[in-house]
């Protein structure tokens, strides 16, 4: 039976959940999993996404730590699997095909790192994707705002967030929470200083969506947190709007789901709350869609004039009513979801067969339902290639969903591997031949294929370039990450959860020992 040596591209929760599940399913098998991440630190959005005031969510990393202590699982931080070298010189750039001969199986767990843009809202100093803010307050290594730069312009009084999902609420909640409360949390100190400045000027955050209260993508916990803020009050939602939503009067039929009715109840309760002494506020605004914005002269009270068109439902689709309002604001933050990045598969569809694994219309890698087997454009299974998490299912859902999906994918990998082993044994064909038949359909023509018998480097070794970079300290192993993490906790001020490190600081630290 050929060995199982799996390369995982991406080291977020999906990767670690798959690795963990493989350990569970194959407790006594000598398999290998090598997890590559383009960032020096593992854990993807758990480290660089989950809001700092939700530390409990990050407890899932304890399980990842346990998986990583198993010698069969290895992590290589700072390896960018990319068709063309990355712009930053921090990470080792490794084209996909150099990886393949060293592995028998390949898993994409690359998440959905690209924010969806709004065609009518051009990026500017006054209009940024929510991910810019998230990367800033989590000190993402590729953040566009290295310390001490803040993405929030000076003297911002009014912010408009576009999109009714949890990331919108994360941002609104953090900006409407006193920096004193935030200071002990896992937020870099320079960010806290900038937030203090924003806190002095900020008065209102408007959270705008193009649908009604039935269709919000917020979850109840996050809505409850918004309506429980001590320093900001909610502008009541018009009663007729809520009533229309409850009665399905907004042209949607059918009863409310449990989630819908609980969220609507929270919104109604929040609307009734009286907080007279509070100077900051937020509003959840429905049935509005942005159609453009202008930057106003510096003398104006607000920096931006945003045009919002009224919307309504027609046969289930959102359409504009033609009625346009101007909203004076200082910063537009778009939070419209995420897509996967196809560039690691190739940059030119005419020369790269792997690029066709990417489903352009869905914005993620094309997979068979349940199990994560990657499919060609024609729907053929690409042997031994899988995608999990946000890379394989699209960028939606909480960690619980990412976990279930990872369990699916791990089980499929094991099943396929065992089936292949059985076939090889019974037909007494060599692994090589099994490989070349399946490859004959041309799916791999521009790539060196995955190994079908003993992989290059044997069971243990990663490609030589990786090996070298581990030795010279450019690549961060899991043990090195844990040392950095401990240093982050140790160097934090008394009572503060941690003080995150920049890569340069991590390098210094790791050089010392």
């Amino acid at each position, binding site marked *: 039976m050929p060995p199982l040596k799996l390369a995982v591209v991406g080291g977020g929760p999906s990767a670690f959940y798959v690795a963990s599940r493989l350990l569970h*399913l*194959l407790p*006594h098998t000598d398999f290998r999993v090598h997890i590559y991440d383009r960032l020096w630190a593992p854990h993807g959005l758990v480290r660089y996404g989950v809001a700092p005031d939700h530390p*409990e*969510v990050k407890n899932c990393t304890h399980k990842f730590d346990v998986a990583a202590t198993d010698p069969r699982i290895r992590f290589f931080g700072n390896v960018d699997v990319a068709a063309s070298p990355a712009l930053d010189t921090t990470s080792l750039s490794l084209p996909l095909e150099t990886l393949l001969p060293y592995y028998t199986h390949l898993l994409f767990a690359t998440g959905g790192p690209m924010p969806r843009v709004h065609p009518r809202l051009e990026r500017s100093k006054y209009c940024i994707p929510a991910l810019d803010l998230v990367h800033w307050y989590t000190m993402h290594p590729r953040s566009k705002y290295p310390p001490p730069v803040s993405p929030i312009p000076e003297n911002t009084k009014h912010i408009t967030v576009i999109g009714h999902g949890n990331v919108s609420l994360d941002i609104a909640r953090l900006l409407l929470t006193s920096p004193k409360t935030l200071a002990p949390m896992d937020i870099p100190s320079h960010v806290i200083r900038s937030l203090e400045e924003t806190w002095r000027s900020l008065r209102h955050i408007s959270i705008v969506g193009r649908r009604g209260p039935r269709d919000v993508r917020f*979850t109840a916990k996050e809505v409850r947190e918004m309506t429980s803020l001590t320093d900001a009050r909610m502008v009541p939602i018009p009663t007729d709007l809520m009533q229309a939503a409850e009665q399905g009067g907004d042209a949607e039929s059918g009863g409310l789901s449990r989630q819908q009715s*609980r969220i609507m109840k929270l919104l109604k309760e929040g609307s009734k709350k009286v907080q007279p002494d509070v100077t900051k506020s937020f509003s959840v605004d429905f049935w509005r869609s942005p159609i453009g914005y202008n930057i106003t002269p510096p003398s104006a009270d607000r920096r931006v004039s945003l045009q919002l068109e009224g919307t309504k439902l027609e046969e289930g689709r959102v359409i504009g009513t033609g009625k346009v309002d101007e909203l004076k604001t200082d910063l537009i933050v778009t939070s419209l979801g995420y897509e996967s990045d196809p560039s690691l598969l190739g940059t030119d569809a005419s020369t790269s067969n792997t690029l066709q694994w990417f489903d352009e219309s869905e914005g993620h890698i094309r997979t068979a339902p*349940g199990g994560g087997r990657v499919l060609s454009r024609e729907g053929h299974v690409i042997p031994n290639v899988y995608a999990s998490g946000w890379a394989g299912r699209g960028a939606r859902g909480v*960690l619980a969903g990412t976990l279930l999906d990872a369990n699916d994918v791990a089980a499929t990998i*094991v099943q396929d591997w065992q089936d292949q082993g059985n076939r090889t044994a019974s037909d007494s064909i060599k692994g090589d031949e099994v490989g070349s038949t399946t490859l004959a359909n041309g799916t791999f023509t521009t790539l060196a294929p995955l190994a079908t018998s003993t992989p290059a480097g044997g069971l243990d070794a990663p490609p030589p370039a990786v090996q070298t970079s581990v030795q010279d300290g450019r690549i961060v192993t899991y043990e090195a990450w844990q040392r950095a993490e401990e240093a982050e906790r140790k160097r934090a001020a008394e009572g503060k959860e941690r003080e995150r490190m920049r890569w340069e600081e991590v390098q210094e630290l790791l050089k010392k020992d």
Partner: protein
Amino acid sequence: MGREDSTRLSLIKIHFQDAKGTPIKTIEGREGDNILDLAHEYDIDLEGACEGSVACSTCHVILDPASYDKLPEPEDDENDMLDMAFGLTDTSRLGCQVKLTPDLNGAVVKLPSATRNMFVDGVKPTKH
């Protein structure tokens, strides 16, 4: 488990079943133990991603109706997380929030499927 006979009286029996209702294990817990901790103690495949902080819903379990009715109503925060549980039922709870009481003796705790795909759910740990 090598527990003293004299403590046996205070032990509370819990029957764990898999998603299809097949018995996995019957275990004995003490008053105040929660279902998530017990599952981990007895090596039962129940996830607890946030480690009992009511922040994840991965510890979702389904109780038999009689036992469900004996429990105090879930708090708001538990309901908020249950909203997101996969395969929610009328007798669903978060395992980390269910504390054993003597009247739960004999309760049946069903684990929801560890995957969404019944086809691969048949893959069980192997030993080769």
